[in-house]
């Protein structure tokens, strides 16, 4: 009888331990699932912030923005600078990749004539991207004193996650 009692007690203790570790295991599974979802959300947030940073950098890029000596006009692209930049960026894609990341920058004229998008820069691409549109003024300095048109900058920020 005593042997059986002792065995039952042992069995009881082992059963408690088994249940305890099962609960612990399920708790850890649940916790790691939540963590994994949180990590995915964090990565998504980081990518979105990076896309905003890149959009702001491009808005204020000296290679594109309208200047008049030391005065800068915000949200304005100099048409001739854009033409030059499109040529020069092709020869220095790797350099601009460290400035913009993997991005595709295009612009189109909205007014007075609607045109197709013209490519300014293209870095390595992927199937996932975040697109930002920035309405801008397009300034053509010729003929003096120049004319302002309306344009639209389209920035595709590629993500690789």
């Amino acid at each position, binding site marked *: 009888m005593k042997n059986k009692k*002792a065995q039952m007690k042992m069995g009881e203790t082992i059963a408690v*331990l088994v249940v305890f570790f099962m609960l612990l295991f399920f708790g850890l599974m649940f916790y790691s699932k939540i963590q994994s979802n949180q990590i995915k959300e*964090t990565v998504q947030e*980081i990518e979105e*912030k*990076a896309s*905003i*940073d890149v959009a*702001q*950098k491009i808005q*204020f890029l*000296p*290679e594109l923005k309208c*200047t*008049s*000596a*030391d005065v*800068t006009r915000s949200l304005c692209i*100099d048409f*001739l*600078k854009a*033409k*030059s*930049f499109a*040529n*020069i960026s092709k*020869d*220095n894609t*790797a*350099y601009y990749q*460290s*400035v913009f990341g993997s991005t595709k920058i295009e612009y189109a004229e909205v007014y007075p004539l609607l045109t197709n998008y013209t490519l300014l820069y293209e870095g390595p691409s992927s199937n996932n991207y975040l697109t930002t549109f920035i309405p801008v003024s397009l300034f053509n*300095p*010729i*003929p*003096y*004193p*120049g004319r302002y048109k309306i344009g639209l900058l389209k920035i595709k920020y590629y993500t690789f996650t």
Partner: protein
Amino acid sequence: MEKRKRGAIDVSFNWIFVLIAGAAILIFFIVLISNQKDSAESNMAITIRTELSSVFSGASLSQDRNLEIDLPKSTLHFTCDFATCTDFSTSNNPNCYSQYEIGETGINEQTPTEILFAPFDISGQKLFTWTLPWNVPFFVTNFLYISGTTTKFIFVDNGQSEILSLYNKFPERLNKELVPINLISELQPEGNKNFKFIFVNNEISEIDIPEQIISSTESYNINAINIKPSLKQIDFYYFDEEKLDFSGSISYLSEPEIYGAIFSNNLDFYNCNMQKAYNRYHLIARVIAERSTYLYNNADIECKSIYSENINGLAAIKSATLSFTNQNINLLGSSISTLGYANQAAQEKSCPLIY
């Protein structure tokens, strides 16, 4: 007798079992907590890195602005190695090995093209940023200056007006002090760890760093620059045992570069960031030169001469910005003036501006 022995074995076996099981559970939880601690530290470092990246990116876009940023308790380590820098004379993708690291976590942000003038280490709970536009003569980039609460900037007043001008333009928020040259010995550390001495046209060999400053920090945290405005030259000094030793000199074009030298711990760090700046300068010069060519091809006769690259200085600027050297800096000085005059002439003749 048997029963007593059996009882004795039963009891001790029970306790041994409890000890083993308890130890196993404890070890399991200790390992789990330790892993979670490392993971939490890494998470925090990643968050700081992401936030700082946005802050630095945004700060560098606005001109002449100084910001105060709250930091969690951590140390930032800034690195920029001039020896690793490449330029447009040798590569289509020039960059420098440059980064900032959060504490000892190994989490870092690479900054191969960003221009950040900062000391090697910034610790404490506040970070200060300041930006100045670099116009040479067209806008190239904003120089971003970063400092912490434990860096002291000591402007040594020897009666030269330039030191007063530099001191007055320096942001109030930053830990700065204007000290007459005869009162250097009375300087106190006041809890600071980094000390930067700024001189103008001074004889550095006559300067003695006070003992209380030397004993309060490591020697590599004490350094100085001597600015020579007439020669447009900055001399860098490092502290070695008892005195300031000359480490090298470099020419400069404009005031933002002087402030870059003030915020950098040594000549190597300064040169590294200036090389990155010159890489940007070269590309923007090429854009403006090509724009100038478009203007030349479409301009009226009275405007055409203004847009010729070889006459307005743009060709010389493109060539001199291929690499960052004293010789090229000196060549740029006159080309910048030429371009400035050409742009002014365009304005006077009612022609489209070059920049």
